[in-house]
């Protein structure tokens, strides 16, 4: 029996560098294959190759073959390939907002997909599009049909993308990180939808993700990719129960260790690091008099004990970053007060005086964006020292080298530029930069969200050990409850600008009282790896991985 999709010996080069190497995979009719790998593993390029949509700079090696229902599509020209795209294979990408044409109503975009492959009238196509919208769970499809993408929520946008991919009844749906840009509860809904659609339509699914938990929740077989090669593949259950390759083992261990069982370095010797937030309200006023102002944070109380870590969890737009900005002196409170560093900050006096600025520092989500690409690391590390009139000359260099050592990097990094480093290394630099001025309060805003799973774990470990050593208190913001729980003493859950539940990390995870918190936890549980398998994690594996990350930094940026 022939496979629905058979990739054999696929090699892809980008500008002469091999990014996918001799990859062989097969998907049968109605089957779901999960592909797991970190950024730069070549999983997305493989998906694009199946559609013949590789970037111009990429070339497929002549020995490769991608057989779709028997036809080798690597030999087809663009016109012939167009009859396959959308018709035989549909694809759903990450980040639906940028994948939908912002100038076109969503209905028109689906109708376009239908009429590209089916000879139907406009009215028929319209009816079919509305049926598709209903099928993917969009309420009131007649009205949504005429909406522009920006008028829909992220979850609805992804549903529209799915409806579009299904419009010509493809035998294979490729989903490339379809839930990565979405909030946890929405991710859960989209996964449920994909499972249902697959069952109803008997369609094969290639599900690509960096998150082993997500893949395990939907796929029957899983293929693990790393540096463009297939590391291991087999039934999901076998891979989870008995991973053969050390990388797979590290991936599973990293994912599982994130969930509980971690040592949280307790802070010591901290006296001044406490933060008290009372009745905080932050309003973003519209640029001109006609726009509506937006209440980002309303009536928030928060207490961070000296040397403790307060975790702040919530979905995008819930107001967590606004709180971080207010604590950093970047956003003006509209009401309420923030007491920290022995001072009080209110609407009247919200800016942090210069001499105190070094005492609170912030680390952001995207380390690539947070570092100036044109300055060497030494110059960037010097900046906080300049700001606080810190040590100069040899003493300054010594201090920088000492901090680099603390974050696990050596002094050779002083002369490097950001593009010469991996994402994890860049985030370490950002942490070192924040700690150079010896802060009492450290604000971490989604600091591991843009990192690979194994790197996430390393950065979290680093933060825990630094806190144990230095005793600063920390506001740790994240959308991933597992990650936040792994580092925090207390957790506050935010929803629509308000804190709806606070408690110790264990209480929130095990005994949530608020219904929203419970939904959040259910969504996380759905993609959690089974815990009954033996945890044979040992630290040596992570060192092994770190060396590999540097080689893929070219892709890590993307």
């Amino acid at each position, binding site marked *: 029996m022939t496979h629905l999709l058979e990739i054999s010996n696929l090699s892809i080069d980008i500008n002469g560098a091999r990014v996918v190497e001799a990859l062989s995979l097969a998907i049968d009719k109605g089957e779901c294959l999960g592909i797991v790998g970190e950024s730069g593993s070549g999983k997305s390029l493989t998906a694009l190759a199946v*559609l013949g*949509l590789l*970037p*111009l700079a990429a070339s497929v090696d002549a020995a490769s073959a991608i057989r779709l229902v028997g036809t080798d599509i690597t030999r087809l020209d*663009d016109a012939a390939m*167009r*009859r*396959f*795209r*959308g*018709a035989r294979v*549909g*694809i759903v*990408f990450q*980040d639906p907002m*940028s*994948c*939908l*044409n*912002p*100038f*076109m109503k969503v209905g028109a975009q689906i109708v*376009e*997909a239908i009429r*590209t*492959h089916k000879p139907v009238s406009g009215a028929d196509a319209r009816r079919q599009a509305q049926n598709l919208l209903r099928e993917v769970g969009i309420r009131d499809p007649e009205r949504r049909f005429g909406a*522009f993408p*920006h008028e829909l929520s992220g979850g609805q946008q992804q549903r529209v*993308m799915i409806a*579009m*991919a299904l*419009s*010509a009844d493809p035998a294979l749906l490729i989903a490339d990180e379809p839930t990565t840009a979405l909030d946890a509860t929405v991710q859960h809904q989209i996964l449920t939808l994909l499972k249902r659609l697959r069952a109803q339509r008997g369609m094969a699914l290639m599900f690509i993700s960096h998150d082993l938990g997500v893949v395990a929740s939907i796929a029957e077989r899983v293929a693990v990719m790393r540096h463009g090669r297939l590391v291991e593949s087999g039934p999901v259950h076998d891979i989870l129960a008995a991973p053969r390759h050390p990388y797979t083992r590290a991936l599973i261990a990293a994912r599982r260790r994130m969930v509980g069982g971690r040592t949280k370095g307790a802070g010591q010797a901290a006296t001044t690091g406490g933060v008290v937030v009372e009745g905080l309200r932050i309003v973003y006023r519209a640029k001109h008099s*006609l726009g509506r102002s937006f209440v980002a944070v309303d009536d928030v109380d928060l207490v961070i004990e000296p040397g403790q870590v307060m975790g702040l969890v919530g979905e995008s737009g819930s107001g967590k970053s606004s709180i971080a900005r207010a604590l950093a002196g970047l956003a003006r409170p509209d009401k309420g007060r923030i007491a920290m560093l022995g001072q009080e900050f209110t609407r009247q006096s919200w800016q942090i005086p210069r001499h105190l600025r070094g005492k609170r520092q912030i680390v952001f989500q995207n380390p690539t964006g947070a570092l100036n690409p044109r300055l060497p690391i030494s110059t960037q590390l010097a900046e906080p020292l300049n700001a606080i009139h810190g040590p100069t000359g040899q003493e300054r260099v010594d201090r920088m080298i000492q901090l680099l050592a603390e974050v696990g990097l050596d002094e050779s990094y002083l002369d490097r530029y950001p593009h010469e480093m991996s994402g994890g290394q860049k985030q370490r630099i950002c942490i070192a930069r924040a700690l150079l001025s010896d802060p009492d309060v450290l604000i971490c805003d989604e600091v591991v969200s843009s990192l690979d799973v194994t790197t996430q774990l390393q950065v979290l470990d680093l933060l825990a050990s630094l806190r144990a050593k230095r005793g600063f208190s920390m506001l740790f913001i994240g959308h991933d409850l597992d990650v936040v729980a792994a580092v925090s003493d207390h957790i506050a859950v935010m929803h629509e600008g308000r804190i709806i539940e606070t408690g110790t990390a264990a209480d929130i995870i095990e005994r949530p009282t608020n219904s929203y918190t419970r939904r959040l936890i259910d969504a996380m549980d759905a993609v959690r790896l089974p815990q009954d398998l033996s945890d044979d994690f040992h630290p040596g594996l992570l060192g092994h991985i770190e060396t590999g990350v540097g080689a893929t930094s070219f892709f890590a940026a993307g």
Partner: protein
Amino acid sequence: MKQMVALATTLGRSALLVVAIGILVFFFLRIVPGDVVDVFSVEGDLTAAQADMMRKELGLDAPLPAQFAAWVGDLLAGEFGTSVRYQRPVGDLIVGAIPTTLVVGLGSFVFGVTLAITLAIGAALWPKSVFAVMVNVVNVWSIALPTFCVGLVGIIVFSIWLGWMPVLGNIWLPIIVIGMDIAGQLVKTLHEELKEATSSAHVRTARAKGVHPIRLIVFHLLPTAAPLALALSGIVLSGLVGGTLTMEVLFGLPGIGSLTLNGILGRDYPLIQATLLLLALAVVVLNGLTDLLHTLIDPRPAQ
């Protein structure tokens, strides 16, 4: 409702701008030494007494505020006054000159924008084709070669050597010369924008649907570049309002440009004031229109 208020705000601001420009034009003209009577004096050997009498007749001896008030009063009554040089109502002169400027201006604009968009799309879709070369040629052309220079060479080659077209009153050559200049100003930026658009996520989605290349260009690529093209067009058009001047003079075309230049040379206050105010009005209206069109093209709320 919100859009109506925004529209009213824009209109109010534009009106204020035109009034301010009117005031500046009026008083700046008076700062420049020499008036129309001085020009006549030099040309026709007027005696001091004759000159004084002429000033009195034209009201140029009155204090500036009074002159200004008289001008504003005329304007409000729909009167632009009478040109001293041409001895004809300024309104008639302008109405007579507008068609020429409109043909040259719009003609070169349409030619330039069409050329720029064609080249930019071609170069974005086929980066190694002749289109990509032409993008650079046209761009460097407009930077390196001033229009009057190209215009002169054009006259020498096409009118004098080849004898294909008359020197004076020729309308095709100026349209092509200005059009090339406009294309050069637009093409590079448009090309960059389209290049980015070809690799953007939503264009990739459209390709993944199997959409035909022509549909891809018209419905997915072009709209992405439209806001930028529009913004650039606004700037180009505003520049064009005064930019046809050199070509009109060079080719002896009786447009607004030549009229303004003659007015300035002859210190013909009513004429200069009217044409400059008209140009200002045109620029303000064009800017307003491009803003309005932008909100129509791009459904997303402004940032």
